[in-house]
């Protein structure tokens, strides 16, 4: 009997040993958008795997539900846009941490496009942001990144959100459909949707939103439990920093305002096309900018919260130290050599 127990014990220990050597699974919530490319690259090129992390991608339809799923513990890492929902979740007592850059709206790098009806463009009715006054603008939801971005662009141009009619249409595909069906005059959608509307002939890209107002639109964020597992959280970030550098060097390097394709340009285009389901020509329109090392634009987070509070979407701002934690990305940058 004792021998039998000893054998069982050894077997159990051996099993535990192999389990530790196995890759650690991490559930990552993402959208099927070009801006998720660094994550896709990290998965496809095995950058996460190199640090013993096996990301399991969970696809969502919109950014806000990713924050909710993170708070509910259904996923461990979120990689998507910063919405009023995310801030409100933290405001209501659920902890989560904004840890790294995952895409900025940046001049010269197409991400979200303001697309108008081809007909209205041809007639010369809408040729600039100012012409949007009094028009119907479709976007996913109020409180979304698009809403924030539109508001800031309008305010820069001396207009207000109240000067036009913002129509929430819940999902990106239905937003595109509303433009096609002429139920709205213009829409705000991220790549690859603007490229598709032009390719299909019913839309005309009025402007890339990043050219009009730059901000930290998307980030990587950690759930409370995941952030507490320090080693695993830093290992994930090591893979992410590696993927981020690979992505940056392949598709983001510019010279004289034009992208100079890096050595791995075509590979990144292919990977992004595969995950987003868009054709490579449309993906080639452009990739969103992000810091080469995944470093955050921290002051912008505060600016965003201030805007949401001013517009009645948040009750009050959250102190930065309670929502931003850059220690993971800094530790990873230190650890991952060029």
């Amino acid at each position, binding site marked *: 009997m004792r021998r039998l127990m000893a054998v069982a014990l050894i077997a159990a220990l051996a099993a535990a040993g192999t389990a530790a050597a196995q890759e650690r699974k991490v559930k990552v919530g993402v959208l099927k958008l070009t801006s998720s490319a660094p994550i896709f690259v990290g998965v496809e090129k095995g950058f996460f795997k190199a640090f013993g992390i096996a990301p399991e991608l969970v696809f969502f339809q919109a950014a*806000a539900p990713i924050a*909710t799923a993170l708070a*509910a513990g259904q996923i461990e890492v979120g990689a998507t846009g910063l919405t009023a929902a995310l801030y409100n979740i933290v405001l209501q007592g659920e902890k989560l941490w904004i840890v790294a850059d995952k895409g900025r709206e940046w001049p010269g790098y197409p991400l979200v496009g303001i697309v108008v009806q081809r007909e209205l463009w041809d007639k010369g009715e809408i040729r600039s942001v100012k012409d949007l006054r009094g028009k119907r603008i479709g976007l996913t939801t109020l409180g979304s990144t698009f809403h924030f971005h539109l508001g800031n662009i309008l305010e820069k141009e001396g207009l207000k959100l109240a000067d036009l009619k913002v129509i*929430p249409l819940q999902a990106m595909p239905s937003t595109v459909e509303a433009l096609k069906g002429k139920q709205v005059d213009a829409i705000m959608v991220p790549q690859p949707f603007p490229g598709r509307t032009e390719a299909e002939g019913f839309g005309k890209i009025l402007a890339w939103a990043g050219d009009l107002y730059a901000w930290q639109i998307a980030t990587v964020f950690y759930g409370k439990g995941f952030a507490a597992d320090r080693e695993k959280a830093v290992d994930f970030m090591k893979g992410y920093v590696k993927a981020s550098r690979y992505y940056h060097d392949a598709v983001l390097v510019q010279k004289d305002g034009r992208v100079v394709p890096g050595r791995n340009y075509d590979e990144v285009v292919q990977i992004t096309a595969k995950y987003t389901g868009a054709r490579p020509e449309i993906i080639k329109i452009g990739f969103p900018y992000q810091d080469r090392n995944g470093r955050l634009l921290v002051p912008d987070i505060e600016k965003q919260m201030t805007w949401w509070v001013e517009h009645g979407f948040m009750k009050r701002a959250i102190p930065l130290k309670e929502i931003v934690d850059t220690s993971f990305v800094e530790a990873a940058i230190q650890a991952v050599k060029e």
Partner: protein
Amino acid sequence: MSGARVPVEDRTRFLERRELKTTRVLSLIGLVLLWELLARIGWVPRLFLPAPSSVAGEAVEMVASGELFRYLGSSLLRLGLGFALGALAGIVIGMAVGIASLAEAVVMPVIAATFPIPKIALLPLLILWLGIGEPPKVAVIALGVFFPMAINSFTGVRNADPLLARAAVSFGAGRWSVIRKVMLPSALPMIFAGLKLGAGTALLLLVAAEMIGAESGIGFLILHAQNIMETTKLMVGIVVLSLLGILSHWVLTRLERLAIPWKHN
């Protein structure tokens, strides 16, 4: 030889239906208290289930800022318009079908064929036809109310006692007079049953309609609160909807008593 009666326990007493009024009230209060307690001790995160006290606080704030009335106003307008249009059309067509056999032959097959369509499924089509805005929202509510009203009015007229109609005619009543003084009153109980049914449907469709392309209304409030994760506001929306349901039922019951006094004596 025992003449004395032995009292036997009534063993069917447990089947007796008692009212237990206090228990009914206590059950409701108990539920709210339990919910408050669970939220207070932090067993459920307040993000997912806010305490009743904070929902009430939020409601007070929303009333004070006028936000709630703005939402409620646009919802009531849609509800009122849609309900009135649907109910009026339903009563008129239902009664016509019940009285004239030509109308029945023309209209009944159409109603029978279109009645089973879930009205919510027509919303995208209505938006395509009428555009994003008020018309499709009012139209879908009107459609939802129309069917139960038409069918109930028809049944009500059919159930009118033919003897009463004959009696009225033999006393010299004209056609219009028979319809107004015999058929309509006979159909009224069924019509009110239809109104109550329609009110429930209208509320359901209102919320659904306000969740597509709306920027005001209680349905919008609920969806918007969910979008920006303000759960307390979401709960306020739900509470307001249930109050709206209770209120409409109460008003219709009152109206019914006024319109059909003979039924409640």
